[in-house]
């Protein structure tokens, strides 16, 4: 884990094509800055099957968005001086992306994989009409389509995502749309070429709850209709629970827990996941007298704590005989398809869970 990062500053190609639709192996993305190297993503691996949804959860600065940008190939100046250093493998439908050239990735982007960004007001161009912005991506990948056909396609898409009067709306600018509408237009833009992988980076954070519910429903419906795989990135565990089949919990650029959604919520194994679940006031449960926050602050990605990055905030770090402070925990299996990176011995962990955590969940 530790020494591989020094050797792999450049792209690594090799290994065999995996069977799953999307496979990310030991992805690292480091940004050199004046203050030191920011290890935004430091060894993330996951698989995603066709038609499934993966939820990536974590606090701000845990590397969620950098992971998604890496898959989309949206980091600039990779491999150049002062540019981000990436390593690992990303296999999308049998094609490796990190070693692939910019042009190759460009052909896939918008076609095979597409992204919904957090804030549609900044992600859309204020000068062009919504229609023009949808058409641009469509015609890029379908050069044979004439203007009329492309426009019809855009109208059809706007209609599909539930925008009323799509034939009028197509000629309006983003500022004429409300927040929810804009997010719908963004989704229409992402769907322009019927992508098989859709990455939604905090798709509902900027929206009100009522609109959020509409958008989540829309994403779910579209996924069923088109059978695409979805990665949803968020800090809201409620949103993840609504959509995801599998969940990956990130902390300090690493994956600390990974498993099926129902397991993560019913039998979480990592103290950080316990903390996240415990610190949330929940509308579906008895009112707690007091919330149980995760103490302290998120770590700096330049100077991660030694050993387990979570140990300074972990209330159980003293029960690992000092291992937490010295050694980085490995992801180990704790159940079917369920992995957690924690030094707490299994018996201790289960004891803490049944005695302290489970009653609060």
């Amino acid at each position, binding site marked *: 884990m530790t020494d591989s990062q020094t050797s792999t500053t450049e792209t690594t190609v090799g290994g065999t094509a995996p069977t799953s639709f999307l496979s990310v192996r030991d992805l690292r993305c480091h940004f050199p800055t004046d203050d030191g190297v920011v290890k935004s993503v430091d060894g993330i691996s996951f698989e995603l099957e066709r038609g499934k949804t993966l939820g990536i959860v974590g*606090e*701000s600065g845990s590397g969620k968005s950098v992971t998604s940008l890496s898959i989309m190939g949206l980091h600039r100046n990779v491999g150049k001086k002062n540019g981000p250093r990436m390593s690992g493998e990303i296999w999308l439908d049998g094609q490796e992306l990190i070693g692939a050239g910019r042009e190759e990735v460009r052909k896939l982007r918008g076609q095979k994989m597409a992204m919904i960004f957090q804030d549609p007001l900044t992600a859309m161009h204020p000068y062009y009409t919504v229609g023009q912005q949808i058409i641009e991506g469509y015609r890029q990948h379908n050069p044979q389509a004439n203007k009329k056909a492309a426009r019809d396609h855009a109208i059809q898409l706007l209609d599909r995502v539930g925008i*009323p009067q799509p034939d009028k709306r197509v000629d309006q600018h983003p500022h004429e749309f*409300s*927040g*929810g*509408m804009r997010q719908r237009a963004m989704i229409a833009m992402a769907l322009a070429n019927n992508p098989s992988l859709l990455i939604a980076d905090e798709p509902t954070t900027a929206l*009100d*709850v*009522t*609109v*959020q*519910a*509409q958008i*989540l*429903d829309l994403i779910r419906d579209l996924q069923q209709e088109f059978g695409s795989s979805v990665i949803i990135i968020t*800090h*809201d*565990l*409620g*949103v*993840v*629970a*609504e959509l*995801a089949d599998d969940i990956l919990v990130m902390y300090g650029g690493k994956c600390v827990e990974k498993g099926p*959604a*129902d397991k993560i*919520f*019913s039998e979480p194994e990592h103290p950080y996941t316990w*903390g*996240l*679940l*415990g*610190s*949330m*006031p*929940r*509308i*579906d449960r008895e*009112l*707690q*007298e*007091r*919330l*149980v*926050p*995760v*103490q*302290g*602050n*998120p770590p700096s990605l330049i100077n991660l704590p030694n050993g387990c990055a979570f140990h*300074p*905030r972990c209330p159980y770090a003293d029960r690992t005989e000092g291992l937490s402070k010295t050694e980085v925990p490995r992801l180990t299996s704790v159940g079917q398809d369920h992995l957690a990176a924690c030094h707490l011995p299994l018996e201790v962990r289960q004891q803490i869970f049944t005695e302290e955590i489970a009653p609060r969940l």
Partner: protein
Amino acid sequence: MSEESSTATATVPAPKAPAASEGEALLQVHDLVKHFPIKKGLLQRQVGAVQAVDGLTFDVRQGETLGVVGESGCGKSTMGRLITRLLEPTSGKITFEGVDISHLSTAKMRPLRRDIQMIFQDPYSSLNPRHTVGTIVGAPFRLQGIKTENGTKAAVQDLLELCGLNPEHYNRYPHEFSGGQRQRIGIARALALRPKMIVADEPVSALDVSIQAQVVNLLDDLQTELGLTYVVIAHDLSVVRHVSDRVAVMYLGKIVEIADRDSLYASPMHPYTNALMSAVPVPDPSRKQEHNRILLTGDVPSPVNPPSGCHFRTRCWKATEKCAEIEPPLVALKTGHQVACHYPENAPTDVIAETITVSKEAGEAVAKAAEAAVAAKAEETAEAAETAEVAEVAAAEEAPADAEPEAAEAAAEESTEAVESTEAAESTEGADAKGETKS
């Protein structure tokens, strides 16, 4: 860093004082209106107005926490700025500790600013990046010209400690702190002059989940320790449930429902509140399949040109013609539970409205309305009964005597138009009961 926060949150785990039902009103707001003019053309003539806040009436009681929820654009932040008098109301009355502050000048407001403070949403933009923490938190002392016993520095350091920050960070700048710590600095500044009331506008929405809980607990501790009264404005219903004693739900410049926390969350009466609650994503994948949520279609209408009658009717699944014509008044359907809707849900089956304080002049009209209700019962139509109810309330609220007979008559007229309704039995009963008590 982690040690500081732990000390803060480890203090006094005492339960929150139940201040919901008792306590005097610290702040009274009556029919508060704020319209922002829209001006156009060379002469800057007013062509319209953004009706951000359109008739709010509520009390904030001593020592309680009033939560205010609603979608963006519903006027909740404007409300916060009005009660702190950062904005001047277009009309209406704000009374703080018995003093009418609605139109006080800046100079006259200044001494009162000690008692009303505000915590802002974004800890990144609400702190001046060029000032040290000491200057920021010490500013209230400087501005109000207050001398403290051991000097301002000592007072500021006490405040920092109270809010779970390291007093030695006196000379640091905001950028050296994380989001949660910055919010603590904002809280320390608000607390500097020992205010009586704090208006917190989305105090935790910019923070990470794990940090949110720290700040929520800190606010809770400070309330117990210093006897503060809070008005917490937020859009997150789970957070509001956790911190509030009473909750007001706003929609397009109006309060549609205001109730004790437990009553509101256990049995929300307004359709909008129901929709809001069902839209909250629940962190429980086993519930994913249930899918019985109420999906509101469309967006909030523009406050420049709000719909007639009930503002919510354009998105409401229960809306009828009546909703377009008559604006539902905010009435108490249960002790401590007011709602503004013609067709409330979860309403108690024996809708005995709280005894409405009726002025002498209004008495007559109420009797008439009650008669109308009885007449309606004879015809066994719900619609009429409900209209009568409305007329009654309207009569009770509009004190001027001339208006009332008209209202009652209108009700009586309408009562003859038998329109079928789903909640026939319930409301007729209710109106009947009321007719008896009143006459």
